[in-house]
């Protein structure tokens, strides 16, 4: 019963943001920079988002917008050097993970927060069978015997709908198809019942029909287990069905956050508008595809004012001078644009 309630509640979005605390996972004003030989790249410049139990947050943005780096920072698998966290908090059940000891963080990984990677072929160890890799977690983290762990691993493979799970247990990753490998990867991530699942572009390496199956599976598992899910993607089509809320990232900032319906109906940031307009449409067959002009900013030299201003069709002088903060506009949605109100209220 509760899962119906939650998924329907979080769709409007207002209820979730009203609560003061008790959030499952919160990223608060996170700042990360990459110190390279050529200079310092400010990859994440104050990202704030949160995800609650039973809710799916989609993080949307083009390559280099910092969505994956945010996820890596949450997981604690950011490569240091070159990556350094320079500010902000990542709170899991209210506790700042960035201040925890390495051992405490390690314990949260897998059991508290787990992650699915983009390329499932390279994310599975080629020299061990798929079943062994799943069963290993039960043995190591739960202290199960080999045969119990095997039973649980087969159950997991069954849950992610791998046909003939029992027979597939002793296959190696290279004997699986792309879609099956991603399913196995999902089974592995969910083995220890994490409360938050971060899916970093889980369908990018798959073909379109398999993409849909994997997204359906993820959505189903998320609802069944009442997990919080962070879905990182650059594919607007993937997002619409599964996500409850969407956070759009640009140049290491959240530029807009809204529930799915509001975002698609009335985007409150010109960047989101540009993204939505660039989806190819059947009724415009034969015409040139619409794009956002220009290139994403160089993160070593982010433009002053609003980082989107050089590409923005609505840019005014104020955009070059003042950085617009992420402000609440209406219930449960926020935008970092000086002209957010005008955008939403236009017809």
């Amino acid at each position, binding site marked *: 019963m509760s899962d119906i309630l939650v998924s329907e509640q979080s769709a409007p979005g207002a209820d979730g943001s009203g609560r003061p605390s008790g959030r499952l996972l919160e990223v608060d004003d996170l700042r990360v920079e990459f110190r390279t030989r050529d200079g310092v790249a400010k990859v994440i410049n104050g990202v704030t988002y949160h995800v609650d139990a039973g809710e799916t947050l989609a993080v949307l943005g083009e390559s280099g917008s910092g969505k994956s780096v945010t996820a890596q920072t949450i*997981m604690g*698998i950011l490569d240091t050097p070159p990556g350094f966290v320079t500010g902000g908090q990542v709170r899991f059940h209210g506790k700042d993970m960035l201040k925890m000891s390495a051992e405490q963080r*390690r*314990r*949260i*990984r*897998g*059991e508290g927060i*787990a*992650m699915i*990677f983009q*390329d499932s072929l*390279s*994310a*599975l*160890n*080629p*020299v*061990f*069978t798929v*079943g*062994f890799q799943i*069963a*290993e*977690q039960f043995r*190591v*983290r739960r202290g199960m015997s*080999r*045969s119990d*762990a*095997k039973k649980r*691993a087969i159950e997991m493979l069954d849950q992610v*709908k791998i*046909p*003939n799970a*029992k*027979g597939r*247990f*002793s296959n*190696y990753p*290279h004997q699986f198809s792309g879609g099956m490998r991603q399913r196995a*990867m999902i089974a*592995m*991530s969910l083995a*220890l019942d994490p409360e938050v699942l971060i899916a970093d572009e889980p369908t990018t390496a798959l073909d379109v029909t398999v993409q849909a199956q994997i997204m359906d599976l993820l959505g189903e598992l998320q609802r069944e287990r009442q997990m919080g899910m962070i879905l990182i993607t650059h594919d607007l089509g993937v997002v619409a069905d599964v996500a409850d809320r969407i956070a759009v990232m640009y140049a290491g900032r959240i530029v807009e956050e809204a529930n799915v319906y509001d975002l698609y109906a009335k985007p409150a940031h010109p960047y989101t508008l540009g993204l939505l307009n660039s989806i190819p449409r059947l009724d415009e067959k034969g015409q040139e595809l619409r794009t956002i002009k220009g290139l994403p900013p160089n993160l070593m030299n982010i433009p002053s004012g609003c980082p989107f201003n050089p590409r923005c069709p609505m840019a005014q002088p104020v955009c070059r001078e003042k950085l617009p903060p992420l402000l609440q506009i209406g219930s449960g949605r926020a935008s970092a644009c000086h002209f957010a109100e005008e955008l939403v209220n236009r017809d």
Partner: protein
Amino acid sequence: MSDPSAASLVSTPRPEQPSEAGAPVNAGLPESAQKQQKPRGLLGDAWIDLRRKPLFWISATLIVIFVLMAAFPSLFTSGDAVNGALSRSQVKPSADAWFGYDVQGRDVFARTIYGARASIMVALLSVIGTLLIGGTMGIIAGYRGGWVDALLSRIADIFFGLPFVLGSIVILTTFNGSGSDNNEWTIMGLVIMSLTVLSWPVVMRLMRSSVLATKEADYIVAARALGAGTGRIILKHLLPNCLAPLLVYGTIMVGSFIGAEATLSFLGIGLKTPVVSWGIMISEAQNYIRVSPYLLFFPAAFLVTAVLSFVMLGEAVREALDPKLR
């Protein structure tokens, strides 16, 4: 959809299992079937794969014979490897003495059998030492990176810069110069040490580059993301994926170390008579190669066979450890 059909495919064999188990004739079968269903690790699968390979059985048999020869030479010959009668000097092979007699009138067959011990022990122990030192240093350097890597790599470079023959001459003349009365085992230990000390940098470089390539792999990151500790990542993820080049190099090294031991013996700084080794026999035979070629032939043939069987074993093991070649 395809799922139901696949499920039915699965379910067909299932009902057969209990009926089989219930059959009184196959009382022992369920147990063995259960054993097979246990999840096997990398080594378990590799072993099952190895058992099917003729290459493995041939090389393993030969190696077992050589090891037996080294451990219990008296099983193979009753001859005397050290004392000879000059009256039998350079007598050709016959039914009595299969490999003939050498210049000093010693039984070549007995000497070849007894020579296995020194040669194989020196080679195997040096290879094990080299792999352990080089492998450990390589993993640490590759995995930790940064200043640890820089430091270990420079240390390796220093040892790499020493020419092998010169280096071992320095080490062995210092500790085993003429006039020193070290016993057989001390000399063997010194030879093993000098071989190990001068060869580990190659293994270290091999391991380091292999670890550098592997540690970037997504499954290492994924393992970390699922909460695996450093020890587990190194043992379960890095090592099995970096082992193949090391094994191949290790088996080749066995051969070259048997040869290196012979070189050192020939230079008079390695093992010395009365110790018997293939290297000593080969170097002694060189002066009589036109008169009595069999003096060179038999120890050399044993050496080549031993080297070959180690290389074949290494190849078989490498193939068995790579799931994609199964």
